[in-house]
């Protein structure tokens, strides 16, 4: 993806929906663009060294103990829970096909969120919503 395509992709994500164009550019510069082939394990259950990923294109499968529990696609993000808690992931995240993503290294997530409080608020809403769903399922 070229820079314009990345910005266009970011502009469509709810996570970044409160940012203006210059802020989106700054975010794109802060994160690194990664390409993954099909079948690649981006996050490994139980292994530290996780990062924060925003999917620009493609699909991943979330796998726990060998069972597929969720699919994530364009606009979804993952890895933040492990980083926020300082704990290893409790799931594998594996690419279903080729995936383009933006990545933020683990240690940088906290500073990034504090620098972009509106993004942190969107993430807060996302985590809140997921917790709500998990509570309703149990």
């Amino acid at each position, binding site marked *: 993806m070229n820079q314009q395509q990345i910005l266009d992709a970011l502009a469509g994500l709810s996570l970044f929906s409160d940012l203006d164009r210059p802020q989106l550019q700054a975010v794109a510069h802060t994160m690194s663009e990664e390409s993954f082939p099909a079948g690649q394990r981006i996050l490994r259950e139980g292994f530290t060294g996780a990062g924060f990923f925003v999917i620009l294109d493609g699909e991943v499968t979330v796998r726990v103990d060998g069972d597929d529990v969720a699919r994530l696609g364009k606009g979804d993000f993952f890895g933040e*829970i492990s980083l926020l808690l300082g704990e290893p992931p409790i799931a594998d995240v594996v690419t279903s096909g080729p995936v383009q993503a933006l990545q933020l290294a683990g240690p940088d997530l906290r500073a990034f969120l504090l620098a972009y409080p509106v993004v942190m608020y969107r993430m807060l809403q996302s985590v809140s919503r997921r917790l709500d769903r998990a509570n309703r399922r149990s």
Partner: protein
Amino acid sequence: MSLTTEERRTWLERVPLFRGCSSEIIDQLADAMAEFEFAADQPIVQQGQVGNGLYVIVSGGARIVAGSEELARLGSGEFFGELSVIDQRPRAASAFADGATTCLALASWDLVSVLERDPRLAMNLLRELAGRLRMADEQLRH
């Protein structure tokens, strides 16, 4: 019971959610919050109603109930209602006073403006919820 602003401050500073906040933010929270008293078993919030506030238990306690299932019992210093406050969705559960109970309530619009002014508060809440999400996800696996 009627808490002075100073008492509210002292109380709020004990709540992990507000740990690390500046004095100015604590003061704004203290001023923005309202006290509510509930008799034993009186509903504090009802499942299904649009959430509009975060409740901190000052004295007494709350039984958190979804449908017919009791999810939790909370006590002094604990809070509930934060999910609806952040996401403006219907309450996931009801809360009933566990004995005579007093709460300090923070309206959703006041919480949002404070979160926007103090990113550390947002980070605290984000980590609290992340921990709960992980516990909930781990429970679902077994």
